[in-house]
């Protein structure tokens, strides 16, 4: 699901300008699967797929596979269209050191939305 973040995409690469000083590692959990995503200077450098024995990351986004699928629709329904919308419905949990996420919130929103079919920025 999230391993496609490493695929080269013009729209995704264009996000780098929003996060060129960002270096972080974060986890996305679908409850069934875990992904560790490494960001280097605003680009997705690596996505590792779990299970992990001793995962090391700064923050973690957890939602069910069903919720992530709804988020990733071409046109998501109301309440599934934004990370904070998921938080509002209490279907997303965010843990860890939130500073990298909150200081680059638009970048992360658009990065994940870049997995939607035909998404352009």
């Amino acid at each position, binding site marked *: 699901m999230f391993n496609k973040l490493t695929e080269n995409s013009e729209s995704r690469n264009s996000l780098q300008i929003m996060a060129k000083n960002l270096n972080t590692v974060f986890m996305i959990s679908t409850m069934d699967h875990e992904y560790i995503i490494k960001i280097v200077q605003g680009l997705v450098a690596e996505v590792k797929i779990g299970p992990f024995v001793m995962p090391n990351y700064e923050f973690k986004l957890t939602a069910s596979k069903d919720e992530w699928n709804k988020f990733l629709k071409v046109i998501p329904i*109301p*309440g599934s*269209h934004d990370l*904070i*919308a998921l938080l509002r419905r209490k279907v997303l949990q965010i843990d860890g050191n939130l500073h990298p996420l909150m200081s680059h919130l638009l970048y992360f929103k658009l990065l994940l939305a870049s997995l939607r079919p035909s998404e352009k920025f």
Partner: protein
Amino acid sequence: MKIKMEPITGRYGNFNIDGVNHRIYWEEAGEGIPLVCLHTAGSDGRQYRALLNDEKILKNFRVIVYDMPWHGKSSPPQGSKVGHYQLSTKSYVSQILGFIDGLELIKPVVMGCSIGGRVILHLASDHKEKFRALIGLQSAGHLDPYYDIDWLHRQDVHGGEICGAIAYGLMAPTSPEEERFETMWHYMQGGPGIFKGDLFFYKFDGNIGDKVKQIDNSKCPIYLLTGEYDYSATPEETKILADTIGVDMVKMKNVGHFPMSENPKEFLKYLYPVLNKII
């Protein structure tokens, strides 16, 4: 080269609000029934740029949009200091009444969005005799915090970036990207701590509580419209409010928290019938 001139004029005025001088900027266009528009938390009057340019509305309404103190081109009140801004119900109501009195507007219509959609409930409860009608966009009686608003004002997080990111998500993915960008940009230009200071009213002090039961719709008509993509003041919450007051509400398709700014074309389809009832 000839430019396309808009019908909007902007002016500054000095208003005495609660004994303090406030230098306030407002824009207006049109003639007829005064229609005072209130912008959302952390933004400014540019959100109503489409209304101020809409020929149909301007034939019957004098559309007036002011920037709240600390927002847009309005100055902080005399004697202000950085880091102390907090919007209270009392100060918000005083500022609206002070602005209306200052311009000597008689029985205006007031339309507010988000915090503006909340404050019209206080106006309806406590000052209904002053208004011809009240329009609430994205109105809800109260809002429980669903994220930590301290992130909106920290020295280690760029205020413009975080406020813009929060606003961006509140819009519908179906709204035109150009309008969404402009709406986000207004948020990116807000002063430090101002969005957070406005949210003190929205999330805490401005909760209407049981006072909502005192609202008498027969004395001053109230209209409620809410975008389906708004997860801050959801259509379900507006419905609860509407049922309590005893009015209908309209759920607007394909718009989110900033209907007049993120998708004006869609929003105006819903607003015209409301304004026609008011004329």
